């Protein structure tokens, strides 16, 4: 991004500072972007797109989470292994939920049928 160049242009870091020092303008721009995306996700609920509503909301949330991780959490400037720790955690979550969802809707008809035949069960 264009910011990268500007940040190298005037490095405020004190001599010998460990780590990357965030530019105040960048931090404020990141917050404004996050607030705008929050507004967008609220506005999107007023449009009925069926299943696309959930997918869109999750997509916007993922973009917001990535922005927080890359700039607020310094991952853009950090050691690569920290990045891989975060990405592998999210990959495991996706795998976990994905595998569980593979067959989760297959049983509901059976449950509904059983409930209809045994009205007293489970109450």
């Amino acid at each position, binding site marked *: 991004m264009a910011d990268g160049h500007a940040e190298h242009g005037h490095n405020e870091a004190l001599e010998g500072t460990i780590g990357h020092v965030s530019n*105040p303008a960048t931090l404020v721009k990141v917050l404004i972007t*996050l607030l705008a995306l929050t507004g967008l996700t*609220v506005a999107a609920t007023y449009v009925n797109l069926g299943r696309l509503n959930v997918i869109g909301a*999750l997509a916007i949330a993922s973009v917001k989470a990535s922005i*927080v991780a890359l700039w607020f959490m310094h991952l853009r400037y950090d050691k690569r292994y920290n990045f891989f720790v975060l990405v592998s*955690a999210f990959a495991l979550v996706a795998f976990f939920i994905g595998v569980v*969802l593979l067959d*989760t809707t297959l049983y509901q008809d059976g449950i509904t049928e059983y409930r209809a035949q045994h009205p007293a069960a489970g109450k």
Partner: protein
Amino acid sequence: MSSTTSHDSTHALPARPKELAMHFDTLHQQYQSAKLGMWLFLAQEILFFAGLFCAYAVYRGNHPEMFHDAHFFLDTKLGAINTVVLLCSSLTAAWSVRCAQLEQRKGLIATIVLTILAACTFMVIKYFEYSHKVHIGAVWGESFGIVDAAHNLPQSLLDAYPGKSAEEVAALLKQNNTGTFFSIYFCMTGLHGIHVLIGIGVYLWLLSRAVKGHFNRKYYAAVDNVALYWHIVDIIWIFLFPLLYLIG
């Protein structure tokens, strides 16, 4: 092998900074180790919450209508305000790291105090949301049962069931196990809220250390790592807000 040199070995060593633990060579190495440890902890936090997100996905996949009915009880405005509060606190948390790196002690204290105030604001709003739900009976599992349905059912929910009285809608919600949604809602937001409370506690500890002037340009890993924790709490809320409040 030191016996071959005439100097005492302690003379040859450079002075060690007082913040440097004995098992590290440099402050930079110490900082990177602490940070990697924090990231591993945060990965564990993400997996910890994953179980609840999985429960959410399974129940919403099977009972979309129950989630749709239940979301009318959640106040989108309060949820959005809390999102803005947390995002702003993420900015002050990121800024506190910058202040620590630049050795701006007053700035560090101010940003930590602002982060704590935002966290408290979040919890106060959460308290009002929780107490209202408990008051009207929009609670977990079998305990679910709307008290005085005519007054306490949201109008938007009644509009979704034209021709049905408030009592009939309340009975239908009970029959559809709407309490399951609130079990998931209270577990997810409750666990998140506990993380916010812990964040307040850790930031109070940082505040006392910042006041004592413990941090400098080479020694601020505590400020950095607490900010990382705070950002993960924010990221989890970024997903909770649309999934719970914006079902529409």
